[in-house]
């Protein structure tokens, strides 16, 4: 009787916390919609929304409407999507590699995608579809290289995956440096450098439609596999002895995470820390079971990115690259949580 009671209590607490996180996400998104360089009064805001939803034209606030619906809204949606994607990919790979210090770029996706983007900028001198396509393609290529190298070694053990990832990462980092070296110092080099720092500036609805399908596919796939991921997080032999063949599921999880991460890098550049920190925080909030951890990471990751992007837009007159801000906010936050709660685990 007692055990039943506590079980209900537990599922209750997990079920109670998820809607709370959703509220945090919605709240930060709506606040962020009203904050920015273009100031508007709450009266104007009401008017803009009123005319948008009733279809009554000509409130004389075309500029405000444009800012809200064409500039801020897509940017916030993209930030939420990227934050959610990087966080769930990080949480999944941490589980898969049985190591809470793994981040989504462990298998070389980010360095590959970064190289692809740099190559695109070098060839086209701009950030167009070719750059995005190169970035996505090289993100996938790098992970395929990592996987095939791990397979060549025969035993597909965790360690050989990680070592192969380190090798591929360093090769692509070197190639990126090579491109920077030969790039035009006046326009290409700054473009590459800023792109690699990560930013949501200049994102439009087109970008949203570009990344929505692959990221949704990845997130839904990972969410479907979330309980099975627990078994894989015990290690290869343990999974086998529990009657589960880990091979197919492992490849699926790696591919889904890769698609997500490559899509994120494609529109926003390289944004570190989110995929590492958010899953940690969620483990504290909701527990280590991936059943709750993956949905929680998705939602909190989205909220975190929306908030950080809002800071990036508003803190100082010039926009701060978001990769810098996530590291500046994420790292101390992480250090704080880690030192505070170290004794507990």
């Amino acid at each position, binding site marked *: 009787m*007692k*055990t*039943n009671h*506590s*079980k209900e209590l*537990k599922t209750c607490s997990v079920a109670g916390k998820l809607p709370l996180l959703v509220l945090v996400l919605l709240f930060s998104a709506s606040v962020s919609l009203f904050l920015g360089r273009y100031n508007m009064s709450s009266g104007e805001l009401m008017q803009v929304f009123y005319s948008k939803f009733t279809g009554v034209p000509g409130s004389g606030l075309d500029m405000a409407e444009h800012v809200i619906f064409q500039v801020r809204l897509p940017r916030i949606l993209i930030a939420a999507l990227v934050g959610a994607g990087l966080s769930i990919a990080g949480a999944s790979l941490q*589980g898969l590699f*049985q*190591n*809470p210090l793994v981040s989504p770029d462990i298998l070389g996706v980010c360095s590959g995608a970064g190289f692809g983007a740099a190559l695109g900028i070098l060839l086209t001198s701009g950030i167009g579809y070719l750059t995005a396509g190169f970035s996505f393609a090289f993100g996938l290529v790098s992970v395929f290289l990592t996987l095939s190298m791990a397979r060549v070694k025969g035993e597909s053990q965790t360690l050989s995956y990680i070592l192969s990832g380190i090798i591929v990462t360093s090769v692509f980092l070197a190639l990126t440096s090579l491109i920077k070296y030969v790039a035009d110092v006046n326009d290409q080099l700054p473009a590459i450098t800023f792109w690699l720092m990560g930013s949501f500036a200049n994102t439009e609805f087109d970008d949203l439609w570009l990344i929505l399908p692959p990221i949704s596919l990845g997130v839904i796939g990972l969410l*479907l*596999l979330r*309980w*099975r991921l*627990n*078994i894989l*997080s*015990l290690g290869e*032999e*343990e999974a*086998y*002895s*529990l*009657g*589960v063949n880990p091979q197919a*599921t492992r490849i699926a999880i790696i591919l889904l995470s890769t698609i997500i991460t490559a899509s994120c890098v494609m529109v926003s550049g390289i944004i570190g820390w989110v995929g590492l920190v958010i899953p940690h925080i969620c*483990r504290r909030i909701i*527990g*280590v*079971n991936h*059943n709750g951890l993956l949905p929680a990471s998705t939602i909190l990751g989205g909220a975190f990115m929306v908030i950080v992007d809002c800071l990036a837009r508003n803190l100082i007159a010039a926009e701060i690259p978001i990769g810098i801000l996530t590291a500046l906010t994420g790292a101390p936050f992480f250090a704080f949580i880690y030192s505070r709660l170290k004794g507990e*685990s």
Partner: protein
Amino acid sequence: MLLKVKNGNFSYHREMPVLKNVSFSLDKGEVMAIMGPNGIGKTTLLKCLMGILKWKSGCSLIDGENSGAARRQIGYVPQAHRFSFSYSVRDMVVFGRAKHMPVFALPGRKDYQISDAALEEVGIAHLADKSCNQISGGQLQLTLVARALAGQPKLLILDEPESHLDFCNQSKILRIIRRLSIEKGIACIMNTHYPNHALRIADRILLLNENKYIVGQTSQVLTKENVQEYFGVSSTIVSADAYGREIKAFVLLDEI
């Protein structure tokens, strides 16, 4: 016969066979202890039975089906070790249900009921919400037994289940193994380094050494002559009368 091993051969490197022509069988409800010096291939044998390692030749069958394919029928209890993520005891036990569930499924009410029953079975229902990394080694070993039971196995394979445990937990584990075999008809195979434990609960013994093995009834196989031959130590069997029963035990005679 529930389990049949026919001429099983295994080697990690071609020149150095680990298991040579191993054959034995085990019936429902029987307990078998595998004994032998360190590094002789006891764990390898268990892994071959589970299909984690593939026999180089020969086979093992459960109910006539290849035991690797019939892994679902086997519950495996590894040596207790810490986990990267501190799942709760209940979560850990429910993981034992995974082999009966489709890949996208979440455990349902029935899975939780079976797992809670398994926790009751080994007597740690009160620990259900504790973290696996915060309980004692003995409690963790019991958790792993419960996890194996949650998979409703016909054959339970335990890798040195009572090593690293104190006296009380050793006998608790042995009692549980005995009870499961008698009450539920589960066949059990365990590696052990303790001949006295084997004497207490095993129906059959498999003694393993380089290039040879012997298998049979406990009383016939676990003799001081065989212990001398397989372990190179001289010993004798003493017996004590306690509560009207005769309990046998090995005593080492070697000079220390």
